[in-house]
């Protein structure tokens, strides 16, 4: 049908089916900022537009419903290239991070300020109540609205958005606009979906209805014969190559236990067949024509089921080792089933796949038995964590096309180089035949560290020659994406009467699901990021990871640390209750401090031998003292409501800053002909501000403004290698590479200037803005220097390069405090206060760092209280949309939510910095568990802490 309407003030005629969603029509018409995060669930708000002046979800309206109406999209806010007041305020406030629906947020705030000139916090919450934001935790939206409101009256208005740090530096530690902020907030082409060309094919996946089964028959003939179908891929015609989806450094500490398609399906939603077709509709129809017969096997879903002596075997393939094969391997493989394929280890992981053990690790320091025998009090408690979804606003997406004989992959990834390596292996081609372009990432949170759809997309392109798009639905995001591993963690603590720990034992049983990606490192991380928080001579851990038939697991912000922290910090809370001591006193007595040697890390290398690490900076002193004062720790709070009890809780937390000895980042930077700079960083900015970090470092070193430095990052053809953005490596590794590259260029600038000025290098220095000066008073601008070096007779274009690796570790620390009100009658838990105090060394981008802390903390509040991936008895996920799954929105913000930066100066981090993001996920569960106990005297030992569980613990039901 044809309809007429006005879009952003211009009359338009739109064509399409009457019932097609307006979002799809607008997108096709070029209004690309009207995105979709929920497949018409009416929840996430990435599709927000105004119809006749009122905000609505474009994917809940059909084309026919807007005939004769006025439509306003986020594109309307931009005037030429000039941002609106609201858009600029959002950038300045630090809320534009992964930014998939930042344009929609800008539209909502604009509408709010037109409706209400001076909105209250309640009115702001109301206006943004239909917008899901996973990255920044909403808090800074209030600042953005305030900035915009004030600037509408006073364009020069400014206020303190975030504290600034390092008076000795011009740019680092200062509030500066994110370098890609304007592009993201205004809804310009930025994400993979924006790069798709007309005429591209669409890939859809037939997924398994069974949790555990062999495919006995698969007939694709009818599907292949359907007009418009280009290709059908199954286990029968895919490459016979085993690999893993984990985007980790090679050789990976994860088994290669899957092909692109397997004869055995191992979870509901596992790949069965891919259809590539001219349109998504044809692909879906073709899927319905594929006939599959299964031999259904008994599934297992829990660690306990996987451990049973007669448990079905999830990965019963032939085991191979690249190095370190045991002597009895042939005998071991006697019981393998060829239909299960292979399990290939790069090196031994203490696995026993025929007993469902994917990996194991064990270690100790001191003498754990004598530690417990010295103890006056011993407690042993078991905690269970649940499967948690990353829920990025931008669901997983991959777009591939051929460029002559090369496959070009537009990816939303955290690991462009691992992606290239894994896809090259899967396709059986060399890496030079693949070009990965990391586009802006609309939320990753760990799940985009795994290669979940790029392999099949690239293969479809490689075999058909056609450009192919594969974009996960929200349901696929739940059933075909990496999630947080469920874990069962037992903590045994021994202590003296005064609370001094004599022994700490942690037994981690992790559920890796159908595949072994991250199966060693996530569970080990539960130990390596929690045990070093306490100083005890006698420590021991056992880690065992089991296969099962739940949907896949993998990396999620915090990795194993949120689970380990929950177990250890809650156990310390239980110990303090047992001893009748204040938890804060116990933490103070036993905690890590500056100068501590973390001996336990000797046993906790990630797939290699670890090394003890010296803590060079630790902000826990400040975090604990300021936090306890903010929350008035010693004061008992009372409620007027007799049904409500109030309690307070605390947890100390840590993370790493990348993986010393494993991670590797490179960068180069060149001087352009006018003396400005082009920086090439291998780092993968996920929206967290890594590109801004890199530009700040280069500008600081080279004595220019940030505007003089442009950046290209995460492009495997055009930027140098980087292991990727995971394990909190961005600022520390990729940032260090950028800083060192700039320092390398600085040396070359001085060398070239010495020639131009006829001075000795040692008498020269850089000076702001962009010039070299000598002690004798001579000077040369970068512009002139560029002319001198690039004019044909000079030394050629000046370029700096750096490759950064290190064995030195920089640990970020934090203390999270909270206050809860628990309704003893209904079990409801209200988060009154949440204070996240974190030491990230020098905060490079203070406003973005705060956003990361708010976002990480709020995600973990979600995991702790609300979110739940629920499977039925057959392993089918029942919570496949955002509403049922229960992600928190702005309405769930703690009443008083504050992130506080506790600066330290780490000697190893660039400009004294450490990581900030992942650690933020580690505090909520234990802090809230401790607070609930303080309020009502019951311990919450399983996630999520629901009202029903509280009522059960209280004996009400």
């Amino acid at each position, binding site marked *: *049908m044809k309809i007429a309407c006005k879009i952003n003030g211009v009359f338009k005629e739109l064509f399409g*089916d*009457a*019932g*097609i*969603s307006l979002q799809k029509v607008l997108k096709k018409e070029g209004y690309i900022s009207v995105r979709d995060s*929920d*497949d*018409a*669930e*009416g*929840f996430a*708000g990435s599709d*927000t537009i105004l119809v006749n002046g*009122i*905000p*609505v*979800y474009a*994917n*809940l*309206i*059909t084309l*026919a*419903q807007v*005939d004769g109406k006025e439509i306003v999209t986020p594109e309307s806010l931009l005037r030429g290239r000039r941002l609106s007041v609201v858009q600029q305020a959002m950038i300045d406030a630090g809320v534009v991070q992964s930014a998939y629906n930042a344009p929609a947020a800008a539209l*909502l705030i604009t509408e709010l300020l037109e409706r209400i000139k001076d909105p209250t916090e309640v009115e702001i919450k*109301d*206006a943004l*109540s*239909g*917008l899901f934001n996973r990255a920044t935790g909403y808090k800074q939206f209030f600042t953005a609205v305030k900035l915009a409101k004030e600037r509408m009256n006073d364009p020069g208005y400014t206020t303190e958005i975030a504290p600034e740090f390092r008076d000795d530096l011009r740019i680092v530690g200062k509030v500066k606009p994110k370098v890609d902020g304007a592009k993201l907030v205004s809804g310009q082409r930025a994400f993979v979906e924006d790069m798709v060309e007309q005429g591209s094919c669409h890939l859809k996946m037939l997924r398994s209805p069974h949790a555990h089964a062999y495919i006995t028959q698969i007939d694709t003939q009818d599907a292949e014969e359907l007009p418009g179908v280009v290709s059908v891929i199954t286990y029968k015609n895919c490459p016979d190559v085993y690999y893993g989806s984990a985007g980790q450094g090679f050789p990976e500490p994860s088994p290669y236990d899957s092909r692109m398609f397997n004869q055995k399906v191992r979870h509901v939603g596992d790949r069965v067949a891919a259809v590539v077709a001219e349109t998504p509709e044809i692909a879906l129809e073709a899927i319905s024509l594929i006939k599959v017969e299964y031999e259904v096997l008994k599934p297992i879903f829990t660690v306990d089921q996987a451990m049973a002596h007669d448990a079905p075997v999830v990965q019963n393939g032939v085991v191979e080792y690249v190095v370190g094969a045991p002597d009895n391997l042939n005998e071991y493989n006697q019981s393998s089933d060829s239909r299960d394929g292979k399990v290939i280890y790069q090196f031994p992981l203490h696995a026993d796949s025929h007993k469902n053990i994917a990996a194991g690790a064990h270690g100790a320091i001191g003498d754990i038995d004598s530690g417990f025998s010295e103890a006056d009090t011993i407690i042993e408690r078991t905690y269970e964590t649940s499967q948690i979804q990353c829920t990025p606003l931008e669901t997983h997406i991959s777009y591939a096309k051929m460029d002559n004989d090369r496959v070009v992959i537009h990816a939303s990834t955290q690991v462009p180089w691992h992606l290239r390596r894994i896809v090259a292996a899967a396709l059986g081609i060399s890496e030079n035949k693949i070009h990965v372009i990391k586009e802006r990432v609309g939320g990753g949170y760990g799940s985009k560290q795994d290669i979940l759809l790029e392999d099949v997309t690239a293969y479809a392109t490689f075999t058909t020659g056609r450009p192919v798009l594969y974009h996960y639905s*929200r349901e696929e995001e739940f059933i075909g994406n990496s999630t947080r591993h469920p874990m069962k963690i037992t903590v045994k603590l021994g202590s003296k009467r005064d609370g001094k720990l004599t022994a700490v034992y942690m037994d981690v049983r992790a559920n890796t699901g159908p595949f072994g990606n991250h199966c060693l490192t996530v569970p080990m991380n539960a130990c390596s990021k929690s045990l070093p928080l306490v100083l005890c001579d006698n420590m021991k851990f056992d880690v065992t990871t089991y296969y099962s038939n739940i949907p896949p697991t993998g990396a999620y912000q915090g990795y194993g640390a949120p689970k380990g922290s929950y177990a250890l910090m809650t156990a310390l809370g239980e110990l303090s209750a047992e001893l009748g001591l204040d938890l804060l006193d116990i933490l103070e007595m036993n905690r890590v401090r500056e100068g501590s040697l973390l001996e336990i890390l000797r046993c906790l290398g990630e797939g290699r031998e670890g090394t003890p690490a010296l803590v060079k900076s630790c902000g826990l002193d400040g975090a604990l003292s300021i936090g306890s004062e903010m929350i008035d720790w010693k004061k008992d709070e009372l409620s007027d409501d007799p049904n409500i009890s109030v309690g307070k809780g605390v947890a100390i937390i840590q993370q790493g800053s990348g993986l010393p000895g494993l991670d590797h980042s490179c960068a180069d930077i060149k001087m352009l002909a006018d003396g400005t700079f082009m920086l090439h960083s291998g780092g993968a900015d996920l929206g967290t501000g890594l590109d801004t970090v890199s530009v700040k470092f280069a500008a600081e070193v080279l004595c220019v403004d940030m505007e003089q430095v442009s950046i290209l990052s995460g492009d495997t053809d055009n930027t140098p290698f980087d292991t990727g953005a995971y394990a909190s490596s961005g600022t520390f590794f990729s940032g260090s590479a950028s800083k060192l590259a700039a320092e390398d260029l600085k040396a070359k600038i001085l060398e070239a200037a010495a020639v131009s000025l006829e001075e000795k290098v040692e008498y020269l220095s850089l000076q702001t803005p962009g010039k070299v000066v000598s002690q004798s008073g001579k000077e040369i601008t970068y512009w002139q220097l560029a002319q001198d070096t690039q004019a044909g007779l000079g030394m050629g274009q000046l370029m700096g390069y750096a490759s950064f690796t290190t064995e030195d570790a920089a640990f970020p620390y934090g203390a999270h405090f909270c206050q809860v009100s628990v309704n003893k*009658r*209904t079990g*409801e838990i209200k988060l009154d206060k949440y204070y996240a105090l974190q030491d990230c060394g020098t905060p490079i981008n203070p406003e973005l760092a705060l956003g990361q802390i708010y976002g990480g903390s709020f995600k973990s509040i979600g995991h702790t*209280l*609300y979110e*739940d991936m*629920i499977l039925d008895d057959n392993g089918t996920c*029942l*919570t496949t*949309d955002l*509403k*049922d*799954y*229960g*992600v*928190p*929105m702005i*309405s*769930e913000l703690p009443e008083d939510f504050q992130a506080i930066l506790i600066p330290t100066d780490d000697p190893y981090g660039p400009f004294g910095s450490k990581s900030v993001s992942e650690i933020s996920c580690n505090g909520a569960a234990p802090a809230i568990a401790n607070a609930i106990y303080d309020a009502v005297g019951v311990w919450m030992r399983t996630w*999520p802490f*629901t*009202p*029903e569980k509280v*009522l059960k613990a209280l004996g*009400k*039901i």
Partner: protein
Amino acid sequence: MISDLIISKSLTELLQHRAELGSRSLFIAGGTEINRLDSPHSDGSFIGLSMENLGLDEIRETEAGITIGAMVTLQQLIDSPVIPDYIKAAAGFAGSRTLRNMATIGGNIASCRDDSYLLPTCIAAKARIHTIDIDRKGEILNEDIPIREYVENFENFSGCCLSEIFIKKQDRFVKTRRYSRTAQRTPDALISFGSDLKEGVLTDVRIAVGSLGCGIKRLPIIEQSVMNRDLQNEEQCLMAVKKVIEPADDITGSSEYKQYLVGITITDLMNEALGGHER
């Protein structure tokens, strides 16, 4: 998705289209239920009958009560100065303002979902609804019925158009409690209690529950027990609830948990309605 959308110029024309197309057609108010993910009407075989521009988007106040057009959005309910607070609160159970801008009172009632934002409250408030239909001779049939009757006989009303909702001006206690982990997650339970208070005695009690996985239910036995003063304490209330309702074990919680919530909430709301008078 719908295959076509017919925009009528009058209610009569709308009903004529309905009579002509029968079950192949759907009334579309805000459209949020029809166009949403997993809608039962997503196969493209239905023709939409738009209810826009038919004068159904008004709220009228008279001495007798308030008449709300079916096309009034949930946000308009909240913004209106004449709508009772308990209806505003129920409209607010849709946690997203953007959704409230689209979803209508008519659509929410006519879809009769287990997790309906408004139905339990409307039942407790003794709201009435106005439906219109057309017979074979082209005669317009108007019907004015209690909303409880509409819900109880929902299948019988599938063909007619819900045009208005009427709420009597009354000094009636109406309150609804919604239990949910988040403002927008599928609720664990929704319990509405309505009653009049005459000389310290609760009369005309209406109790309705939703979001229990077993449809919108009125609890007449418990209503009678309340009016008979048979429920003297929470324990009796919990026992009574267990006898009359069996919620589903589902993603929001166990049946036992939901029965408990219903029981304590009825106890609490009954006490609140009594306002200090003895049970």
